[in-house]
């Protein structure tokens, strides 16, 4: 007989257990769910960015179609007020009352028997608007005498933010040189392939809202708050979700409207967002303008950073983030992975007549990375040093950890310098740079760009309490239950919508009990089945739900060990947990299967040791103390070729060295990196919500808003470093967002490098559309 060992599931490149249902068309998306008597909703949306509603005429709508207008639900709203002093708040109405504040804002709702008929009926509602001057830019919003979007405010600024480090003046004085720029990131968004979707019904007095969300419990809170009812009269179910990326991590008026309509009509109400609505009304993100100056010395050592952060937050503060999230994150992370301390930053989260602004993978970090990495590239140019060397000189070093960055974020550990060294050798950096320079001298516009960053992940109480949010996202929860057949169910407050958590949580927690993947079921997305927790966002799920699951698994293991030791008549310390069950060390013949052990605990209380209760369930929360987060780091390098005559950028190579601590499943890690990089390429080259001066959104189809295809994303090569986090169970770190953070900076740097033989340019705006690139080429020729 072989000797049993405790198995190691963490680190295994295993295929995902959730895949078969998606591969066979059995995904449980909201749009696929059918309940008896289901009716279909359609929203009438504002065609104006800023207007008074004069009248709403619903008389042409046929009987049999239900209609709701703002006045019907004027007492309900979604409000998210920051705890920051001076925050100007405005509740987001369910349906606009009296006034509209962005194109696409819901104004009326119809409910018909069929989606086609609902759309027919919605066209019959006549709304008379009195247009007001729209506020369509940050400059306009903050200018003297700008129209007020919310009349009771004193300006269009949600709340001003500011921070200056105590040593700022001193550090600026130490610097001998500066580089400055205005760094612009376009308005764009996560744009998951599945739009939003809601199906609400009242079952036995409970409002059941199925909705495609990343944050089921928080949506339940939002709906209960909006309706002024108890949370236990609302059940939110978020089944399979076809991509989230942050867009589905906000409470939306349509979710509340469907709940209200279902309650009012006594019938299930389904609403499937169409793609045009998605562009108009699903929250946007990413639009930052940073005015920034980097102060450094003659050797290219950074001394200080000065920055003003402007974010176009749109018309309303979104639940649960408030409208200060992006500004706050940018202010914290702008210093990047660098060890300078002098820092002065001002933040301006601005209200405009645009779609409200919420989360998108990376929240602010792509814009912050863009700004700091462009500045570091320019510093290298100014000092005539290699860009890689310029970074290496300024990085937080291994022995600095824990390092409090200039913005107050505490970096727990990482491998910044090592990642640069690994990359240098892996891609033959020095030869590659030389080769590209030779190609350029021969007339080809080829170049290389790079960006290095830290990705805050799994931050909890300490971090979110600083951000002034009304709900501090302090922990996640997992309940583990073993049944009498020895199979394990993990019920968790996080959500899985592509991240592979049904597999990775099972790997991570199953290892404690020796229970293999095929005997573990992960349950999520139903507030009646999982304990309270925030949900999936901010690269937190593996760390926090994984940690909670491991703690709960350890609780179960203690009980199992006590019973097994009793039954096998050995000491608990002599037990081994493995795929076959529990054995005595060195005596494989003394084994009790997990099924038998569980069966005895549930069904043979007569055999249990004194004081052991016949339950096999444990619930734990985990907050990854100290709650400041754990930091993944990564170094991205990309090469491009630019078409001199059209400005088209072709990405010819992309490499990532990433350290997300201990990897649970490298296959899943790589998938997350690839997907993030592809989205970052969208930011860098394609994606932009374009508004005209009237506040009309011009990009409302996939013909106008361009997502990268398989011909636009290159092969992405990855290498891993594994520096365990000191802050988390198992040493793991969150990494879901990281891929999306660097590409805009990388590609801008690569294009700038590619044009360098023509003449100097300073690229500071993305996306790099062919036309923008051609403009930079013209500038390069003028600057020659």
């Amino acid at each position, binding site marked *: 007989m072989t000797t049993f060992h405790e198995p190691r599931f963490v680190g295994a490149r295993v295929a995902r257990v959730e895949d078969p249902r998606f591969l066979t068309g059995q995904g449980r998306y909201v749009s696929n769910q059918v309940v008896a008597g289901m009716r279909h909703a359609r929203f009438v949306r504002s065609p104006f960015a800023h207007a008074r509603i004069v009248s709403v005429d619903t008389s042409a709508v046929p009987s049999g179609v239900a209609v709701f207008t703002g006045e019907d639900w004027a007492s309900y709203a979604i409000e998210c007020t920051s705890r920051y002093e001076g925050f100007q708040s405005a509740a987001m109405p369910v349906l606009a009352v009296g006034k509209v504040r962005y194109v696409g804002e819901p104004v009326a709702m119809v409910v018909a028997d069929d989606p086609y008929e609902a759309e*027919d009926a919605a066209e019959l509602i006549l709304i008379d608007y009195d247009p007001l001057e729209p506020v369509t830019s940050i400059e306009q919003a903050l200018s003297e005498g700008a129209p007020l979007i919310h009349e009771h405010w004193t300006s269009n600024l949600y709340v001003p933010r500011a921070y200056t480090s105590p040593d700022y003046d001193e550090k600026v004085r130490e610097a001998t040189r500066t580089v400055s720029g205005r760094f612009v990131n376009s308005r764009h968004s996560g744009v998951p392939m599945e739009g939003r979707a809601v199906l609400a019904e009242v079952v036995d007095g409970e409002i059941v809202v199925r909705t495609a969300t990343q944050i089921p419990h928080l949506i339940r809170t939002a709906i209960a708050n909006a309706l002024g009812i108890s949370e236990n009269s609302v059940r939110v179910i978020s089944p399979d979700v076809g991509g989230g990326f942050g867009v589905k991590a906000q409470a939306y008026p349509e979710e509340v409207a469907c709940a209200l309509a279902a309650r009012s009509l006594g019938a299930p109400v389904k609403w499937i967002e*169409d793609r045009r609505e998605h562009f108009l009304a699903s929250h946007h993100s990413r639009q930052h303008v940073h005015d920034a100056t980097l102060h450094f010395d003659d050797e290219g050592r950074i001394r200080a950073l000065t920055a003003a952060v402007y974010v176009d937050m749109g018309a309303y503060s979104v639940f649960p983030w408030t409208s200060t999230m992006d500004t706050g994150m940018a202010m914290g992370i702008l210093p990047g992975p660098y060890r300078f301390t002098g820092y002065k930053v001002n933040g301006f989260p601005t209200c405009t007549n645009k779609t409200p602004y919420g989360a998108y993978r990376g929240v602010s970090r792509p814009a912050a990375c863009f700004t700091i990495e462009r500045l570091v590239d320019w510093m290298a140019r100014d000092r005539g040093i290699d860009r890689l060397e310029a970074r290496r000189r300024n990085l937080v070093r291994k022995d600095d950890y824990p390092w409090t960055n200039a913005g107050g974020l505490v970096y727990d550990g990482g491998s910044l310098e090592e990642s640069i060294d690994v990359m240098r050798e892996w891609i033959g950096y020095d030869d590659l740079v030389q080769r590209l320079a030779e190609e350029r001298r021969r007339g080809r516009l080829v170049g290389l760009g790079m960006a290095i960053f830290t990705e805050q992940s799994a931050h909890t109480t300490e971090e979110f309490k600083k951000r002034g949010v009304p709900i501090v996202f302090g922990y996640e929860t997992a309940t583990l239950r073993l049944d009498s057949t020895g199979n394990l169910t993990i019920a968790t407050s996080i959500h899985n919508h592509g991240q592979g958590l049904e597999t990775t949580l099972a790997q991570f927690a199953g290892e404690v009990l020796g229970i293999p993947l095929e005997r573990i079921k992960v349950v999520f997305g139903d507030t009646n089945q999982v304990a309270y927790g925030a949900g999936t966002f901010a690269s937190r799920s593996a760390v926090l739900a994984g940690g909670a699951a491991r703690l709960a698994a350890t609780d179960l293991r203690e009980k199992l060990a006590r019973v097994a030791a009793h039954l096998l008549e050995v000491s608990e310390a002599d037990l081994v947990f493995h795929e076959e069950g529990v054995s005595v060390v060195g005596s494989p013949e003394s084994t009790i299967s997990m099924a038998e052990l569980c069966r005895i605990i549930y069904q043979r209380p007569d055999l249990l040791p004194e004081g052991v209760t016949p339950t096999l369930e444990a619930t734990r929360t985990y907050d990854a103390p100290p709650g400041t987060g754990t930091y993944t780091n990564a170094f991205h390098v990309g090469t491009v070729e630019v078409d001199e005559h*059209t400005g088209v950028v072709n990405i010819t190579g992309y490499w990532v060295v990433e350290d997300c601590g201990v990897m649970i499943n490298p296959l899943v890690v790589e998938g997350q990196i690839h997907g993030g990089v592809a989205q970052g390429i969208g930011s860098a080259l394609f994606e932009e919500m374009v508004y005209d001066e009237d506040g009309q959104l011009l990009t409302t189809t996939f013909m106008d808003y361009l997502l990268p295809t398989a011909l636009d994303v290159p092969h992405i090569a990855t290498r891993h470093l594994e520096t365990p986090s000191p802050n988390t169970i198992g040493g793991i770190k969150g990494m879901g967002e990281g891929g999306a953070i660097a590409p805009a900076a990388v590609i801008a740097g690569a294009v700038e490098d590619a044009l360098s033989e023509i003449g100097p340019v300073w690229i500071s705006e993305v996306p790099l559309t062919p036309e923008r690139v051609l403009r930079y080429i013209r500038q390069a020729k003028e600057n020659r």
Partner: protein
Amino acid sequence: MKPPLFAYYRPNSVAEAVARLAREEGAVPLAGGQSLIPMLNMRLARPTTVVDLGGIADLQGIDVSPDSIRLGARVTHAALEKHGWPHGYEAIPEGVRQIGYGAIRNRGTVGGSLAHADPAAELPALMLAFGASIQLASPRGERSMVADDFFLGYYETARASDEIITSVRIPVRDDLRSGFSELSRRRGDFAIALAVAVRWKEAGRTEARAVVGGLDVRPRRIPEVEEALVTGSELAITADLLARHVHPANDVHASAEYRLEVGAEMLRRAVWSMENREDS
């Protein structure tokens, strides 16, 4: 995004189809549907009746004769792409491959694309460049029209509302050579600018066409370039030259100025491609 109400009529013959189009003002023909159905889904089109041409056998088939290649109006882009084009006609399959994606080319048709007349579409520019003629049928009978006269403006053609395109004839010419070039934001998107260059021998003379698309309300010929291709003289193809003949619009993808600039580049590339084909 669900279509509005409309009736459906699927005739078996061209005569039935055009009779219905003549009788009912709001009736529109449906070919492959790859432009019409998105417009229906977005409710930008509101026909009273959709007249489905899918049941009319006469509109099918590619027939090659010594003097022309006849494309039935319902020949799909996929069929065009796979057709064994004679040497010199490479611009056609090259251009067709830029239309949408595989699944779009499987359904989209020659007649549908020409009737839709998107100014940035590939087929209108190709047909203009190859001197194709378009056959139309109506209750008044049949007529044929050269592509030069067919495309009138922005989504506007000489097709009367009760007419349908039945076929397209591409003349077979001696010593024909062609080149195609297109710039779009991503593969399959409508062109920011595209260009086709064609040169052939006719009755001992050299003839040429140089066509740009995406730069105006319809594809346009650039006579100075055609002249230079015939005479073999040097000519700088520039944005200024194009600006004499085309007036691009600004949109979310590109400004008019940019379109002119890359339009000139596309035409240079189309000419280069034509001049540098390997002889086979």
